[in-house]
């Protein structure tokens, strides 16, 4: 089982390296190789997650190691979907480093499966966390697309029209996909917060307890509310929207790692 995780990590690392190489000299072969490595890593990763599920008898997201592994898995899943749907060049070169870094941080966190307190043994665990992770994955993807937008925008503004510029997709499609990802991520985050509140209500008799994770989820939610309003009402398109989606993802990451590691609360998994 440990081997499976390390193996997936290795494949993601290899895909990252090939992806970075692709930035400088791309050919059909490098693209195919990157996708192949990522797919292989994903397959092994999936088996790893299923195995942990069978062993622990609950969704393997009850410690930070499992959660970040699952987070990375959701991002790769979404990456394959976006790649299949839009076929925008070089997306893998930008997304795989993010996946690899999340997997790397997962690898250094303690891995043992600990018993779950009865409060967490509920079907809400699956619903609440899955929604949150897919939503977070959409935000991660939106941020990466935002980075691609900023790179391409920089080239166009500075008139540096090299081969990377030639291979990156056009600005409008990047902006549109960024927007779409946020419009997927936002309802998922909303549903995650609301299912979380329902769970809290049935577990502790109060649907909102202002614990740090809740507060930070609310801040994240407010940031994306802001992103949507800025787009719809003020017309913050392109560069500003790209920056906002990156800031949003930074907050998501803090909510994910920072709150668990720095602040204490309900979501510390094991008590």
């Amino acid at each position: 089982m440990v081997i499976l995780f390390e193996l997936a990590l290795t494949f993601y690392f290899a895909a990252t390296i090939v992806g970075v190489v692709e930035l400088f000299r791309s050919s059909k072969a490098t693209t195919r190789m990157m996708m192949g490595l990522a797919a292989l890593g994903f397959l092994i990763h999936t088996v790893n997650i299923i195995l942990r599920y069978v062993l622990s008898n609950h969704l393997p997201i009850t410690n930070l190691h499992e959660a970040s592994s699952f987070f990375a898995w959701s991002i790769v899943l979404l990456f394959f979907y976006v790649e299949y749907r839009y076929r925008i060049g070089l997306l893998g070169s930008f997304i795989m480093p993010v996946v690899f870094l999340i997997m790397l941080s997962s690898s250094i966190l303690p891995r043992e499966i600990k018993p779950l307190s009865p409060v967490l043994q509920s079907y809400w665990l699956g619903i609440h966390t899955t929604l949150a992770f897919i939503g977070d994955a959409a935000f991660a993807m939106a941020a990466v697309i935002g980075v691609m937008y900023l790179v391409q925008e920089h080239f166009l503004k500075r008139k540096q029209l090299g081969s990377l510029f030639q291979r990156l997709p056009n600005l409008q499609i990047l902006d549109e996909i960024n927007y779409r990802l946020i419009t997927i991520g936002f309802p998922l985050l909303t549903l995650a917060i609301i299912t979380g509140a329902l769970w809290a209500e049935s577990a502790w008799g109060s649907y909102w307890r202002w614990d740090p994770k809740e507060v930070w989820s609310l801040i994240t939610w407010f940031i994306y509310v802001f992103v949507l309003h800025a787009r719809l009402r003020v017309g913050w398109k392109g560069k500003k929207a790209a920056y906002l989606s990156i800031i949003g993802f930074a907050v998501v990451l803090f909510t994910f790692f920072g709150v668990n590691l720095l602040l204490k609360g309900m979501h510390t998994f094991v008590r």
Partner: protein
Amino acid sequence: MKLLVTGLNHKTAPVEVRERLAFDGPKLESGIEALLRLDGVSGGVILSTCNRVEVYLTVQDPERSIPLMKRFLSEFHSIKPESLEDALYFYSGSEGVRHLFRVASSLDSMVVGEPQILGQLKDAFDFALRKKATDVYLNKLMKKAISVAKRVRTETRIAENAVSISYAAVELAKKIFADLETKTFMLLGAGEMAELAVRHLITNGVRDVRVANRTYERGVELAREFCGRAVRFEEFKDELVNTDIIICSTGAPDYVLFKSDMKRIMKERKNRSVFIIDISVPRNVDPAINELDNVYLYDVDDLQEVVDSNMLERRKEAEKAEAIVEEEVEKFLRWETSLDAVPVIVALRQRAEEIKSEELKRLFNRLGGLDERQKRLIETSFTAVVNRLIHPPTVALKEDAEARDSLIVLIRRLYGINGDEEE
């Protein structure tokens, strides 16, 4: 019949000389007529663009025609022959074919890969056809040159990278917008380069075109040409709220679009991206506009830089193109030799000899028991018949220079003699 190419281009002559030698307007018609009156010339095509003036002739003897051509050009354009001495180049035979193929494929152009030369060559050929100035050989040559150019374009990426400033503008637009079909476009002012860019945009799908010109009538005229709509110059800024691509070429001495204007416009259009191409010199759009978010301003120098950097890429593709041209030249030369009279006469005689000996053999077998003398008499009589039948076409091929090309084709078909001719 031999090919002779006489001409000059941007590499051999400065623009002052090229200008004076240009066959433009009525000069083209009178020029072609005068050429055909020259001694030993049976067909001609004149290609006259701003970068080159070339005359393609079929002549009896290139060596003899070269001095004639020099004299003709200096007399026709009233230029001293000395000033042409260094500028003119002459290619005959295979050299000439190669030169034409390279010109058509845009390998000899100032901007290698630019697509306009092919259209110009087609026009030149069409004009000569209409004037009945071409012969079978030239027709074949020109059609081949056009198909070679098309092959080069499809098999190499030579024309893919921005080949000219207007093309570079379209390529950039495609990196800003996802689909040009839904984008609106405005031409501000006029000018040849601007018009070219508009055409490129339209062929790439831009449908909604507006034209704003200082003189409204000219604007209306241009708008009609592009199936667009004319806008009064005073009102163009209001229209910019709904315009995604702007080409500016007004010839005004100062800026016509300022940063403050654009700031307001961007706010009104909710920051939807705008691509502005300023190809006027001096510039008409305040360069500070490029600092605004979602506005991309390119002036003529920026575009030239794009073109230059693409040039390098294109040089690699040019090598592939040269190989294709070489292959096609060889193919054409093989066909050309089949057009020569001597091999046709030889082949005709050979065919006749074949028939004769076949028939003799069969006759001798059927008669049987003939002695040597009888055999010789019969053979002599057969030979006489064959010779008398072959004689007139042979003479015609040798002497009727005017109709030789068509005769060769005719004889090959009538007697079933196949050369290397393809198609």
